[in-house]
Structure formats: structure tokens, C-alpha cells
């Protein structure tokens, strides 16, 4: 039976870097172009998951567990962020019955 790090290593490292960078860029584009707060939020999560994937890949290529430990920290912190972020979005929805970030322009002038 093959261990998981070996299976991961059957694909060259460059491919992982490419894939993660692509996911990361999709996330950035999502944050910059979408207007719905929840979708923006999902795009940010996509960026974090691209980071997780790349960390796991590096970590199994280098046989160094530190990278995968970092993934656990990112996941835990992202969960805390989701809790706060969704609370903020719910709070806004209660006040204006919308989560379109274009509506929020009270502070501009």
C-alpha cells in the first residue's frame, strides 16, 4: 500500500504550484469583481484553500510536517473568521435587507 505523501509526489511539484496559483488568482478576481458579500467571502475562502493545498504539497515533497501543521492553524483560524464574517453579514442583512456591497456607500461622502 502506498502512503499518501508518495501518491502526492507522483505529480511534479510545478503542477501543484500552477494549480494553487490559478485557484488563488480566481479567488482574487472573485474578491475584486463580485458584488454579493457572500460570494466575495467564498472567494476569500478559495484563496485560503489554495494556500492550504500548496502547503500540503510542499510539506509532503520535503517530508517536513511543519507545513501540514500550518494548514491546521489556517483551517482553525479561517473557521473563526467565518463565524465573525457571517455574523457581520447577518447584522447588515437585518438592517438593510440586502447583502449587496454596492449598497454600502454611506461613508464615501
Amino acid at each position, binding site marked *: 500500500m502506498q502512503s499518501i505523501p508518495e501518491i502526492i509526489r507522483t505529480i511534479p511539484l510545478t503542477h501543484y*504550484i500552477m494549480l*494553487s496559483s490559478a485557484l*488563488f488568482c480566481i*479567488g*482574487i478576481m472573485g*474578491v475584486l469583481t463580485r458584488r454579493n*458579500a457572500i460570494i*466575495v*467571502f467564498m472567494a*476569500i475562502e478559495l*484563496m*485560503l484553500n*489554495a*494556500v492550504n493545498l*500548496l*502547503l500540503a504539497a*510542499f510539506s509532503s515533497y*520535503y517530508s*517536513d510536517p*511543519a*507545513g501540514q*501543521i*500550518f494548514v491546521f*492553524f*489556517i483551517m482553525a*483560524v479561517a473557521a*473563526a*473568521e467565518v463565524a*465573525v*464574517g457571517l455574523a*457581520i*453579514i447577518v*447584522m*447588515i442583512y437585518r*438592517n*438593510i435587507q440586502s447583502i449587496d*456591497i454596492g449598497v*454600502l*456607500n*454611506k*461613508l*464615501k461622502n
Partner: protein
Amino acid sequence: MNSIIALSLLGILNLFLGFWLSRKTIQAATLLFLAGSMALTAMDWNHEMLWYGRMFHTTNTSISFSLIIQLAAFMVVSFSKGFGIDEEHTHPAEYYAILLFSVVGAILMVSFDHLIMFFVGLEILSVAMYVLTGSDKRNLRSNEAALKYFLMGSFATGILLFGITLVYGATRSFYLTNIAEVIATTPQASTPVFLSIGVLLIIVGFLFKISAAPFHFWTPDVYEGAPTIFTMFMSTVVKAAGFAALYQMLTGPFGSLYGTWVYPIYYISMLTLLVGNITAVYQQSVKRMLAYSSISHAGYLLITLSSNQASTSSTILYYSLSYTLATIVAFGVVMLVAEYQTGRTEKPENFSSFEGLAKQNPGLAFCFTISLLSLAGIPLTAGFWGKFFVFSDIFNRHVYYPVILAIIMSAIGVYYYFKGIIAIYFKEGDIERIELPALVKFAMWACTLGTLLLGVYPSIVKNLF
């Protein structure tokens, strides 16, 4: 080091105190906790040590920054009275507890020696700040500020993490010392391309957090929308912690990559100065003007970072302290006047609401004037020496353009800070006497006297280490 354990536990204790005690008592307890943790922090002075599996490093530099952060938190807690939010719906113990937790995050951020520790500290600080920004639940401006801060903050975190990952991929370690060693020993030709991309992404993430120029657009909105007491906290603690961490990151592991990061920092500092100062001139709201002024101060601090001299760390320390003292008083006076003016004028935070403040409130006016003079960098205040040290650092590198630009920009700064001073002394207004609680009075005078003291004897802090 013990201070982070103490503050975390005391924060939880604070939450429980909320069941039994009144707001005043909890405020006093929080002040006591912060004073105790400052004493614990100071006890490590001159005992350079590594803790928690070499992840946490106490040096005199990190201890001084931790002390500044806790001092700022202490002053902010002294200023807090009802948090400017409707008393009925608030649970003050929660806000005090979150403040204590975020101080823990800030302390981790200034004394990390491992990137996980740094990341956790940054997130403890940021998540706490998202909550506090949105704490005025029924106010749409506060909601908007919280959402903007949250989206921009986690976006920046994502970029920062990608940078950290690429650096890990290139160096195979998260320890700052190991990273520095690998970067220094690997020959230029065999370094992976993504190392410098990673460093640049980390810098971009940081620039978001400290609100430097192309990434500053969220700052004025967030600073204006958040309850003033938390704006005060944000603009002092988050900024000081961010700069200390950026300094540690750039000079520690990436010290030998000086050529890679110095030019971005150098140009961004000049852009930040231009954008911050010129936009501040056009602001009608004092709070928004102070937000832009905080952007421009980030510019001065970035200049000293790009000089990378031996004295840079003490310059950043001195500048952060002088900026913290002045900003706390400035935002504090804005908070008090805006609270007094609520319902009387359309925009309680505009310059026009400050007209005639000096007549009935000479003390308040004096403190506000000193803090604005210090922000503008007028001699005999701490701000003057802060700018002086920044300029002399970059001058020692024989780079003159940023100095010239920064001097012109300080002159512009004098214009918009004096708008506030003119409004309180030379315009007619009908502000009655504003009654101040004893703690607010104490914090205000302590910060003002600190500003003046540092302006006369800058060496107390500058020669600390």
C-alpha cells in the same frame, strides 16, 4: 512572555465579571489587569529568551513594543465610557475582554520567531478588531465599516499567507532564523523564483494591514465608521504591531534580500506620503482627516524602514510611541466633542462642530492643540523628534529625494492640522462646558504630558536599547 498567558486568562475572567459587576468596576478591573501585564512584560527586560519551542522571542525591542501596545490599550480603556454606543444594548465586559484578547494578538505579533506564531497573532488581533468595528450594531455606518474591514482584512491575510507559503517552499522552514540562514547560504542562481515573489506578497499583505498607499482605500471608511473609541485602538495598536512585525520580518529573515524589497518600500512610502497628506487637506470631518493623517504617518515610518540602519528599530519605536500618544488624545477629543454635539448638528465630527471649543473647555482645547502640534511635527513635541529621527536615518543612506518630499509633505500637514486649532481658538461657537470623568481627564493629561516630556527629552526612549 507571562503577560500573554495572564492577559488571555484575565480576558476570560473579565467575561465572567460581566455577570456581577457594573461597567465602572469592570473598567477599573481591566485597567488593573493591563497594569499587571505591563509589569509582567517589563520583568523580562534584559532577559533575552526563546519560548514555546523557539517560536516566541523576547528581546528588549519586542518588550518595548509590547509595552507601547499595552500602554495604548490602557489609555483606550481609560477613555472608554459607554463606548459611544447605546448603553441599553451593550455588554461592556465583552468589549473589554475582546480588547484584552486583541492585545494578546498584538504582543504575539511583535515577538514572534516562527511564522505560525506570527499568523496566529495577526489573526487574533484582526478578528477581534472586526468585531469591535461592528460593535455599534444598529448603526449602518458601523456595519459598513465592519464589512469593509473584514473583507479587506481577510483578503490581505490570504495574500500574506500565499507569500508565507512560497517562502516556505523556497526555504523549507517557518523559523525566522532558519529562513535567514537558508537565504544567506543559497547561491543567487539556485534560489527558486518564487522566493522573491513570496517576499513581495508578504510585503503587500503587510501594506494592506498598515494601510500604505495603493492599499489604503479601506482605511478612511473603516476609521470613520467604527465607534471612535475603537478607531483610537485600531490606529495605535494595530499600526504599532504591524510596523514592529514588518520590521522584524524584513530585517530578520529577508535581511539579505535587501535589494529585492527596498525599492517597493521606497516608492510606496513616497506614494503614501503624497496620497495621505494631499487627500487629508480636503476633508471636512476631523475623524476622516485623522484617518488620512494616519496613512501619511505610515509613509514616514516606511521611509525609515527602507533606510534599514542600525537605529531603525529605535526610530520606529520612538515614532510609534509619539504617534500613539498624540493620536489617542486627538481621537479622544473628537469622541468627547462628537458625543456632546450629537443631535445638535448634522455632522458632529466636522471641523465646524469644534468651533469655539476653547472658550469653555480650555483644558480640552490645550490637549487637542498639543496632540495636533505633535502630529504635525512642531518642535518641543514628541512628533518633531519622531520626524527628525526618520529624516536622519534616511539621510545616513545618502538618499535625499524622500527627505525633500517628506519635508514638503510635513508642511502640507501643518496646514490641515492647524485647521483644527483655528477652529477651536479663533472661530465663534456655543459649546458649553463638557464634563469629563476623572479617568478620561487622567488619560488625556497623561498622554499630553508624555508628548511634551518626550519632546524635551527624546533620549529617554530613543536610547532605550
